[in-house]
């Protein structure tokens, strides 16, 4: 190697220094590239292994699903029709429950003092009933029942709609009550 040390030494050193930096940089970049490629290889390899395991798992479950197709259809139908039944049950008029709840107050079976003349109730809890009384004292006695807290607590809204007197009939006094009764489930 021939080097002009007199004129070019300084310049040569500068350039050589630059090449040295390039060498180290390339070595460093090479290491980084090797590590990056190795990591990516490892990750891709492990992900491929996971993927192939999942694929085999899926094929097993798919085979089972094909075998269970009929059961699946039936369970799907059970759920959908069950939802319809549940909705129907929630919205229907619970007449038997209301009867149990109201009977102690209204006494549906006629007594010597009064009788239930009419009753109308719907699934929204709208209720109207009228009761006939044979004497004024019977009417007063029943009014105290209808004004009792335990009776009022059965209703969202309630009130006496009409009170009439019929002197020609044996059932002289008539009381009509209307309101909205609470859902049977709340009262049971």
């Amino acid at each position: 190697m021939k080097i002009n040390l007199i004129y070019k030494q300084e310049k040569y050193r500068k350039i050589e220094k630059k090449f040295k930096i390039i060498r180290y940089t390339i070595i460093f970049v090479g290491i980084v590239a090797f590590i990056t490629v190795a990591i990516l290889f490892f990750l891709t390899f492990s992900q491929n292994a996971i993927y192939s395991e999942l694929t085999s798992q899926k094929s097993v479950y798919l085979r089972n699903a094909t075998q269970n197709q009929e059961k699946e259809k039936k369970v799907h139908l059970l759920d959908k029709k069950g939802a319809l039944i549940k909705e129907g049950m929630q919205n229907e008029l619970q007449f038997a429950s209301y009867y149990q709840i109201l009977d102690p107050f209204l006494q549906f079976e006629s007594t010597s003092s009064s009788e239930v003349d009419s009753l109308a109730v719907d699934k929204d809890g709208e209720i109207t009933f009228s009761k006939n009384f044979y004497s004024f004292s019977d009417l007063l006695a029943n009014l105290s029942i209808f004004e009792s807290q335990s009776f009022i607590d059965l209703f969202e809204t309630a009130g006496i709609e009409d009170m009439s007197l019929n002197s020609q009939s044996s059932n002289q006094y008539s009381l009509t009550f209307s309101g909205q009764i609470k859902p049977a489930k709340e009262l049971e």
Partner: protein
Amino acid sequence: MKPKISRFTLQLIKKNAFFLFGIFFFTAIFVVFIPFQLKGYLQIKQEIEKEEEEVEKLVSNQQKIDAFETFDIDRLYSVVEEAVPSTEDGLNVLASLEYFSNQALRNNFFITSYSNPFTKSSEGVLSISIEGTGSVKSLAGLMQSLQTAGNRFITLDNVEITGTEANAVFALNYYSKKIPEMKGAKELFVSEDNIEAVRQVQNSLEKNYIPDPSLELDSNNQTYQTNPDPFGS
């Protein structure tokens, strides 16, 4: 003409040729190979997520099916198909009303008339108005077993009673619904509450079952005439 690259520089280039080649090599690795590898990695990751979701869905469906005994599914299915059929059948409703009348009689409530079951209906719901007489207590007793009279799921809309002998008018609803089948591999949704509602109907059916006397066979009274020579005179 003076050369652009000096002799010394050229010598240094030759000396470091391997490293200079490295610049191009690693640039190619960083610009082409690593992005390509990264793209492949991200793709497989996405695929895994998709597969995991599907496997999860399949496992969930399997678990939901496994939660039922096979005989239980078949039994509940037959109950629900009878209680809420896919399509309304007029004869089935009439049979149910007949069954309902018998049940009313057992409760000392007498049904006097039905409205035409084929006139008033909305989608999936058939409404029937019924008139009858009996005490309020007997009507309440009948309503206790109303839900599954005649093996159908029935709900009560309203009741109007007049007079002490309870001339009653009430409205019943019969239900029918066609359930579209599950298309493709979808996740199966099963609500405990919905299945419980079906079980309630099943229990009610078992509790309120009235055997049809005409179908009852008393094995002790059955006699069979035998003819040793059926072709003889």
